[in-house]
């Protein structure tokens, strides 16, 4: 299975993950500072800054895109509960 590497900048941890993993599945396990509310892409609590490698995340769904717009999220910000890692290297930190 293709692998990817996601780095949580706030705690200095890089995790090798299978492609298809969502950020939420990793960030909680390593204790990164990204926090979660609804976990369903609605509340925007888990807004995360993608420091680099945004192209290595699957594009946001229509729902995620709308929530990001409604909450005035800056560029290169994603919902960690929705963002799916598709390969390569990604660096993230809490928004």
């Amino acid at each position: 299975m293709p692998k990817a590497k996601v780095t949580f900048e706030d705690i200095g941890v890089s995790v090798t993950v299978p492609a298809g993993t969502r950020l939420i599945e990793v960030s909680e396990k390593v204790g990164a500072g990204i926090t979660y509310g609804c976990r369903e892409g609605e509340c925007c609590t888990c807004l995360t800054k993608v420091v680099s490698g945004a192209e290595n995340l699957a594009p946001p769904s229509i729902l995620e895109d709308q929530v990001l717009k409604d909450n005035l999220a800056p560029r290169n910000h994603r919902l960690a509960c929705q963002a799916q890692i598709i390969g390569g290297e990604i660096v993230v930190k809490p928004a």
Partner: protein
Amino acid sequence: MPAAALTDQAVELAPGVHWVGALDPHLRNFDIILKTANGTTYNSYVVRGENGVAVIDTVKENFADVFFQRLESVASYDEITTIVLNHLEPDHSGALPELLKRAPQARVYLSSRAQMMLKALLKPSGEKPPEYIPVTTGDTVDLGGRTLHFLHTPYLHWPDTQCTYLVEEGILFSGDVFGCHFCDARLFNDSVGDFRFSFEYYYAHIMRPFRENVLDAVALIEPLELNLIAPAHGPFLRHQPRDYVHRYRELATPRLFNEARSEKTLVVFYISAYGNTRRMAEALAAGAEAIGGVRVSLYDLEGGESGIFTDLIEEADGLAFGSPTINADAVKPIWDVLSSLTTVNVKGKLGAAFGSYGWSGEAVRLIEDRLRGLKLRVPVEGLRIKLVPDAGELEQCRDLGELLARHLTGKVEHREIDMAALA
């Protein structure tokens, strides 16, 4: 002093400025979390300019009738050009759908974050959302000789909250800020009964979790000329309104100088039946203290109360909880503390758990789950030790303390992990 609100007429605050809200004297519990010993008020206001009329907030839905009666006593619906929503919670927006039907020409002014909530609010009625304009600090609406100036004051106590300042009269329509659940038909702070307890109780339960936002809002409000504060609940503050702003600043500021303010702080809470979890706590604390830049406090939960511990938790950067496992659970004093934290902001603090156990040792994982649920970050797996910790196991406790301290001070080394290795 005559009671101002015993009729269904609007009550004048200043020329062309009226209260059109509602009294709810029999309410005894608000939003489940607040006691309301003499009820509350839902305050809504009308401002008349030369070119139009503004309505600022509405009331809870089942008080809509008296709201509309009072509104009709000072304005007709076709005069309403402006509706300001300082806060979309249902106790202030309950009459909004009906108001929008009666005054469809009105433009709605609200914060950016309120837009989603407005759509959700109007969803049951199937009504198309009205023309609405998101505003922030510095935006104004000119009613003709009357200027509404908006202040962006989010998280007081919802993401959508804002204040609106009537420039010419020096009146601040503050939303829930400076409000309280206190019902007295005399309405003005220099006429009503003693509401000081209610004012501070409201702050403690509604605003305290957002004290950083409170201080931001107070900084925006302090430079304003203030003749009257008109909050969304409780008395209008016309006598010494600035005192209430100053009190908010005091309430949002730690009371005593924090001697550890230049360091990171770790508070270690424990409870112990046979001294084993206590020994773990002491070793953990010693390990953390060995790392420079961290000030550690050690507390036995049996020696205090949830309220005191809540104060400690609010100020701490990191929290470690030690509990034995009894009947497959952490013990009640732990849960008492961990279920008392809705009044403070714990999001993003560092959390950890540890404990001695006899048979199955579920407490540590259960505490960790609760800490994550409270939006703490839990970067280090907790430590479970079977019954009596030996010298090597106490060394593990010290190591845990050291690691927590390194996380608090940013001294942790970069790690590479394979996801398969994570529990």
